């Protein structure tokens, strides 16, 4: 009894310590961004100061610089627009493709799915030169449409591969039942398969959107004007001037960009994890 008691307490201590370690590890960058955003430069650069707290009065100077002297809001808008478009294009192409590969082509579906996934593994650093020719030929250079065109080539293969797994886990009998109950195959797909795979679809949405916000090479290569920048390129280009780093504003920009995505992840966390098809089939 006593030994069991010790063991439970021991297990709890390990459990809690692991949680604490990971929480600190994951929360620290956010803490650092917040504190750096509001610190005066003099406080930030004085080596003797305790870096984890405010040693002088907090300031809004860095935010003023970010919003007043750069086109940060415009970049955020560009990124949101490109993100939304890429998500829509990805879903429109990847969802039907993944369903077809998962259901209709039998064994070849699997091979083709892996083949498509492999194209995702070709790094952008290899592709940006030929793709910049394509973008130039289409006359899309220096516009956000260049990245709207190029990003789906990265998001679609991965999304197809991911969704294939989701669709395969949905028992075929569910669609059969829906078809017997009065739907067409397309109706069964829209009203049965899509709602059940909502976790997979949300994963695709978040994956595509985050890819757009963090992609660097294509955005840097294809777009030069300040007003058309994506947030991931605009921040380092315009807040690092020569050898001067505007740390406070850089951290503020990172914070403002990353918090919404972090919140989004948190909001749908259950959806990602939930065993959504449990109970459908014994």
């Amino acid at each position, binding site marked *: 009894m006593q030994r069991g008691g010790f063991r439970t307490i021991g297990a709890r201590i390990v459990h809690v310590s692991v949680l604490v370690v990971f929480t600190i590890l994951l929360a620290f960058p956010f803490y650092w961004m917040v504190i750096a955003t509001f610190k005066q430069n003099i406080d930030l650069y004085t080596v003797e100061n305790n870096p984890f707290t405010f040693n002088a009065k907090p300031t809004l100077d860095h935010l003023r610089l970010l919003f007043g002297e750069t086109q940060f809001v415009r970049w955020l808008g560009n990124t949101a627009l490109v993100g939304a478009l890429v998500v829509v294009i990805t879903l429109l192409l990847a969802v039907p493709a993944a369903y077809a590969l998962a259901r209709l082509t039998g064994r070849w579906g699997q091979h083709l799915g892996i083949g498509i996934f492999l194209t995702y593994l070709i790094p952008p650093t290899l592709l940006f030169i030929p793709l910049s020719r394509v973008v130039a030929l289409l006359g899309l250079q220096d516009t956000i449409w260049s990245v709207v065109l190029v990003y789906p080539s990265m998001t679609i293969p991965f999304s197809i591969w991911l969704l294939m797994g989701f669709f395969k886990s949905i*028992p075929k*009998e569910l669609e*059969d039942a829906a078809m017997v*109950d009065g739907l067409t195959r397309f109706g069964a797909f829209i009203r049965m398969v899509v709602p059940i795979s909502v976790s997979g679809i949300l994963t695709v949405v978040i994956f595509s959107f985050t890819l757009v916000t963090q992609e660097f090479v294509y955005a840097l290569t294809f777009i030069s004007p300040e007003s058309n920048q994506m947030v991931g390129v605009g921040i380092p280009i315009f807040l690092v001037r020569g050898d001067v780093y505007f740390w406070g504003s850089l951290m503020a920009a990172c914070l403002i960009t990353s918090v919404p995505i972090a919140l989004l992840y948190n909001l749908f966390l259950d959806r990602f994890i939930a065993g959504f098809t449990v109970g459908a089939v014994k």
Partner: protein
Amino acid sequence: MAVVETRNLTKVFKEGELGAVNKVSLATHEGEFLVFLGPSGSGKTTLLRMIAGLETPTSGEILIGGQVVNHLTPRERRIAMVFQSYALYPHLSVYNNIAFPLKAQKVPREQHRTKVEWAAGLLGIGKLLGRKPRELSGGERQRVALARAIVREPAVFLLDEPLSNLDAKLRASAREELEQFHKSVGTTTIYVTHDQVEAMAMGDRIVVLHQGVVRQIGTPKDVYEDPADTFVATFLGSPPMNLVEFSDVIVGFRPESFLPADLLPGAKHVRFRYKVNYVEYLGAERVLYGAIEGRHFESKEIISRLSWTMPAGYDAGSVHDFSVAESDLRFFDRKTEKRADPRPYPWQ
């Protein structure tokens, strides 16, 4: 209600290979409970799926209510199907699961509640309407699946092994409920199973399938007592029919007809010396495994089934006189394995 008929229905999945279903012609009666019985791989589910419209036949015709339905989609065939896994929609509540066919078929919204409540009431699941499928037990899921099937009052029910996911005790009561249910709605029902007890207990008639071919269609009594060939003879009955080869015929008799000679008065018997090798005690009965000694059938393996009311003393190693009434013998052609005419003993 409607009659389902198939004419030379064939399904070949891979060209050049043997068909999963081969030239099956059969017809249900109006309001009948017809059972497709066969081992796994016998084509019974494929046959059912073709009738449902979920599988396209390679050749042949399917008729429902006298109309050829080959070209119709599943939803146009006025059928309802219960799947082996029940296929409940996991993201919908029980109410919405049952109402789903109504919505899909665009039944006016104001009728939904009445119909769902009628179906749920019939199956005793009125209290579960707010739950999700994952919160139900196996038996409850099966009832929800049935309620979803009856809610739009289909012409034909197709049931694909709906009891195979239930434990033995629940299965017996569900079987009884299903029979009652069929009696009360009276819809033509096709039921697929590999379980002969289910088939015998529930079926008005049984279609015995093997390798995609219909071996026999008949009432449970027909297929059990007068099997059309040796496959049916050994597939039905547990333990199966004893088969002994003799010149150009195979002679079959049920283990329960092979009894101690002194318990079978009257003249028309065939007698054997029977050596018991081992005994299975099953409570209500004993199953003896042994061999015939002497005469034509030296050391043929034979099974006998004795009811618990019969005297004890048939222990392993003992030798007794056993006999079979001549009227209980069935004859099969040795080449074709089909039923042959009875012959007088000694069968020459």
